[in-house]
């Protein structure tokens, strides 16, 4: 078998540098040597990095923001509500009218145990059970990337609710990029701990992809937060590289 010629050769570095300046995401060029070194030192271990000390607190960082953002007594439909933890919190602390949708029967039973109204249903079959604008908010927390038809679900979400709350892992996060780009491996990170064959994330996308979609579909991003380098903060322009996870509030224009 013939060896393929190398695709990336650092021999003609100046030509390469010019090309990178032209073609590559400018944000990537700002990646610090420290970060790269940390990443490269980790390369070779096939295990996900061990969770940092803040992992527990950050596990549901989105819930804190949702709780502080939604008004008292509003109505919320949680799409893929899991065990109902978010709705319990919002029903108890903000007296919201909550309704969950969940496919997994065991999770549904947990919802009932927590006193959360939940309908066992498949989001891939749409939200035809629900009338137009019947909720103030619909939530898609870490769910969009797991469904078969994400765009259809986003559209359904903004049909049944006046506003959408969407959180998702950003597959343009720099560690994820380097895993695939430099190592040629499907990324495994602290917050994306799955291997390619057991991941529920069947539609990987990036913050930039999502922003593109909002522009083409007449959807406005009202506010955004990210988890970046262990910190939760407001969304910034360069976050397609730095955000590990994203939370945005959206509405139709």
């Amino acid at each position, binding site marked *: 078998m013939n060896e393929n010629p190398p695709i990336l050769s650092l021999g003609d570095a100046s030509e390469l540098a010019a090309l990178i300046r032209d073609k590559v995401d400018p944000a990537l060029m700002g990646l610090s040597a420290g970060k790269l070194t940390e990443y490269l030192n980790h390369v070779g271990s096939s295990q996900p990095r061990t969770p940092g000390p803040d992992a527990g607190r950050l596990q549901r960082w989105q819930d804190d923001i949702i709780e502080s953002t939604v008004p008292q007594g509003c109505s919320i439909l949680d799409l893929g509500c899991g065990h109902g933890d978010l709705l319990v919190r919002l029903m108890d602390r903000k007296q919201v*009218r909550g*309704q969950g949708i969940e496919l997994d*029967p065991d999770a*549904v039973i947990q919802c009932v145990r927590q*006193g959360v109204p*939940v309908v066992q249903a498949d989001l891939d079959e749409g939200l035809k*059970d*629900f*009338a137009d604008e*019947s909720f103030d908010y619909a939530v898609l927390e870490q769910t969009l990337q797991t469904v078969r038809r994400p765009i259809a679900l986003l559209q359904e979400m903004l049909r049944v609710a006046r506003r959408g709350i969407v959180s998702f892992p950003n597959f343009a996060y720099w560690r994820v990029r380097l895993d695939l780009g430099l190592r040629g491996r499907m990324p495994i990170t602290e917050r994306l701990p799955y291997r390619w064959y057991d991941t529920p994330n069947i539609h990987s996308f990036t913050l930039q992809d999502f922003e593109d979609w909002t522009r083409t579909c007449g959807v406005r991003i009202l506010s955004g937060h990210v988890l970046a380098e262990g910190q939760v903060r407001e969304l910034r322009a360069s976050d397609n590289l730095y955000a590990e996870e994203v939370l945005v509030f959206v509405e139709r224009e």
Partner: protein
Amino acid sequence: MATTRPDVDPPDSPCSVGWTVPQTIRLATREDPFPLEVGGSIGPVDVEYETYGELNKARDNVILVTHALSGDAHVAGWDKTAEATGRLWRARKPGWWDTMVGPGKPLDTGRYFVVCANFLGSCYGTTGPSSPNPSTGKPYGLSFPVVTVEDWVRQQARLLDALGVARIRAVIGGSLGGQQAIEWALAYPERLDKCIVLAASPRLSTQGLAFNAVGRQTIMSDPNFNGGCYYDGPAPADGLAAARMLAHITYLSEPGMHDKFGRRLQDREQPAFSFGIEFAVESYLDHQGKAFVERFDANSYLYITRAMDYYDAAAQWGGGDLVEACRRVQSDVMVVSFSSDWLYPPAHCREFATALCQLGKPVTYVDVPSRYGHDAFLVEYDVVGSLVRSFVNNERRSS
């Protein structure tokens, strides 16, 4: 979900309600009869009911259980009067939902006052076709009026009135009992906090209507049926047994029957090449049919299956539109279906939940994975018990 049946709780078990005595109340008289949904009225109406636990001072700890086609008011515990009343089968086993009702059980009698009444037209102590017609002194037979699910729910409401109960914490029922629970949420929305519907839909499917038609036909074509006037002679036992055999098939599922019986022969290694009982499944159905005849009245079977056929929540309360009907609902609702149920299939059970969703009313719908078919609502008591306990005990009103 796999479940193993525990040994029944004996009457002296701390988990059993113990010995029970059925009670009877006259809810209507000949002079002041009970009005019926399809017109006319009936009187007197005597109702047999049972209660478990204590009614608290605030009278707000009441759970109404609504029974299914062949059920009775004897939900839990051991009938002290089984011998005296000739209900010998009750001496062998506790009430039909003893797994659900008792001290510490999902419907905890240490906390709740649980009530169940035998419905009009049945044959377990409440006025039915085998009761004497006051104008002739003989059993009603087919002169008994047609009764409906709506009548039963009104009858239960009257019983609660008589017991001094204005509002109930929950109504719960499975199958035809679940249809009564639906009717409760629509007919008396202001009288209940929670409604639990197990393996039941707002109306019976076409296939369900067909099964009931065959069941009634086997009864009415029994040579002993005699237009329903058989109380002086032999009962249409073969017809009733065949109806029960057919019904039992609808209570199981294809995979469930396969698991339980396969193609095993009954008590033999080789087929006998006869028309006797060859296969284990035949033996099971034969036994179910014969046991049923000992405890059920054929005319009651006709009336009750008809009530099941006629019930249509959408027609009754929404001019045919279930969403319109559900505007009335004020209670928290939980609908539970079972994946292999083909008598009340999940998609049909879900319709009630969907209508409530359409109105933005909070609702819980669970489709329990099970191979036990329609019977799952009784057999899957671990998961059903867990759901019911959580839902009934939950203090957070979601609406």
